[in-house]
């Protein structure tokens, strides 16, 4: 593809959007139960666990990536364990690696806002659902999630946007392999490295526009849901 006379490689863009979307979905699935469990905890351990959830953020991404490729090394214990349960593929230097890395790094962005909105739930409304025979899962999806919608929204937006721009972890765990694990952020970086500023600017601009569109869509959807419900 050509844009303004420059060749534009679509692969990284598609890969990035795919990884960001999958990461967001995976994190919603993993992060929601974690957020719920934390929000329900009353013991002292909770303070420690809450701090633990924020941890992936405090290490520089490249360094976190460094530790990840050590942990996920094909001869390492995690890979062996997975081989044992039947997963034979590699965990790093492929899309799987990109997703694992992004999921771990962005965990706090999903869990923290969702946890905060779980804490603010009006208990009496959840109680009301119970009196209408809603089982835990039923009321979780029909009452709790809608009431915590803002938390899910913030969590998803931060996770998505952050995964799009993620660089360090993705570079390490993905390996920046052309056509396979080269995300836009790495591609932009490569362009800057090799003085292809025009390409870098353009790719940045495209990414920014894309992201604005995706985010605007999410916000608009949120509004619509709000209004439809309302």
């Amino acid at each position: 593809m050509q844009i303004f006379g420059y060749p534009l490689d679509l692969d990284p863009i598609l890969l990035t959007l795919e990884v960001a979307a999958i990461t967001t979905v995976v994190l919603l699935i993993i992060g929601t139960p974690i957020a719920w469990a934390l929000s329900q905890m009353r013991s002292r351990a909770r303070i420690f666990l809450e701090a633990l959830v924020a941890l992936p953020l405090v290490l520089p991404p490249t360094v976190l990536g460094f530790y990840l490729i050590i942990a996920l090394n094909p001869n390492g214990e995690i890979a062996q364990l997975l081989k044992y349960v039947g997963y034979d593929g590699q965990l790093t230097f492929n899309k799987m690696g990109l997703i694992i890395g992004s999921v771990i790094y962005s965990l706090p962005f999903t869990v923290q806002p969702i946890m905060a909105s779980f804490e603010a739930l009006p208990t009496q409304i959840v109680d009301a659902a119970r009196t209408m025979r809603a089982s835990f899962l039923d009321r979780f999806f029909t009452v709790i999630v809608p009431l915590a919608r803002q938390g899910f929204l913030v969590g998803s937006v931060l996770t998505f946007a952050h995964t799009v721009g993620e660089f360090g972890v993705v570079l390490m765990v993905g390996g920046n392999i052309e056509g396979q694990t080269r995300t836009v952020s790495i591609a932009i970086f490569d362009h800057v490295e090799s003085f292809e500023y025009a390409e870098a600017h353009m790719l940045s601009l495209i990414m920014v526009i894309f992201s604005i569109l995706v985010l605007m869509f999410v916000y608009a959807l949120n509004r619509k849901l709000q209004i439809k419900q309302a």
Partner: protein
Amino acid sequence: MFKGNLQLKLGNFALDSGEFQFESAGVTVLFGRSGSGKSTLLRALSGLDRGTRGTLFFGDECWQSGKTALPVEARDIGFVFQTAALLPGKTVQSNLNYATQRVPKNRAQGPSFEEITQRVGITHLLTRPVDNLSGGERQRVAIARALLTRPRVLMMDEPLSALDWRAKTELLALIESVIADYQIPTLYITHAPVEVERLANRVVFMAEGHITSIETLAEATTRIDSPLFTEEGPVSVLHGHLGRVDEDGLIAFESAQSGAFCFWLNTTEPTGTPLMKHKARLRVLARDVALARARIEGISMLNQIAATITRIEADPKTHRQAVFLTLSDGQALIAELSQRSVESLNLAPKQTVFALVKTAALLDH
């Protein structure tokens, strides 16, 4: 039958019901001062509070035993919260749907969606988001929702407090007919004696976290020191049936034992309407009953009923005297008089007197 003994500690407040047991059929009113633990007891009975301890049986079903409790969602209760607790951000319609969609297929039939919404008076609100309803509108939606769950037990926490008089009357009639038609045992919290008199079969009195007594309506209303009647004094509730509406707009309320007594009452029904409903309750405030030694002429009071004085109780604090009367069919009627009147009329037990009642409120119609 509800039977058990429930404890629930909330901060400094401790609910400790003590052993209790009462029929579940009909309406059981929880009555007590603000902060006495009515809402807490109701929540403990419903299973909403996980901290509840003790035992609770509903009929043969064990609802609570020690720490283990049957989950609320398996108890088949309908609950009206003191604060409505509607699902925010949704319309009235979807709030109601939430209840109806979760009614098990095998639940007994109940009144239809249309009937409920219409009689509760929220048909025009169905498409409205619940977030900006008025206080009374919210309460009506909450009541409709609870009725639509087709509950086995209905629990209502001051469901009518924010309503105007007409809405109150209409909803009382609705609640009454639904729970009677579908035989739904009901637990009901209210501060309004008139709601007690109208609905209650029995009253659970509460104070400081304990159940102080459980009485039938008749026991509760005829006690001169009943906590129900700090406001308007003792009340007699007479059971009887209604006759035809007369030409001049009055309707006769007669004893089941024919000729025992006949009260002429006002009605808004048009002349000639035949007996509308056989059984009815008549509520007579003791302080609305005057006594005379003989039938009196030349007075606008039509209802002059012969009765025998059974006993006279004085309330030393107020100098008021409660004169307990027996009507010829054996029902009790109380008159509250001043000491001065009792003395000047020389009233004493065993005397036959005439009870003059100007105002009496018909409770069912």
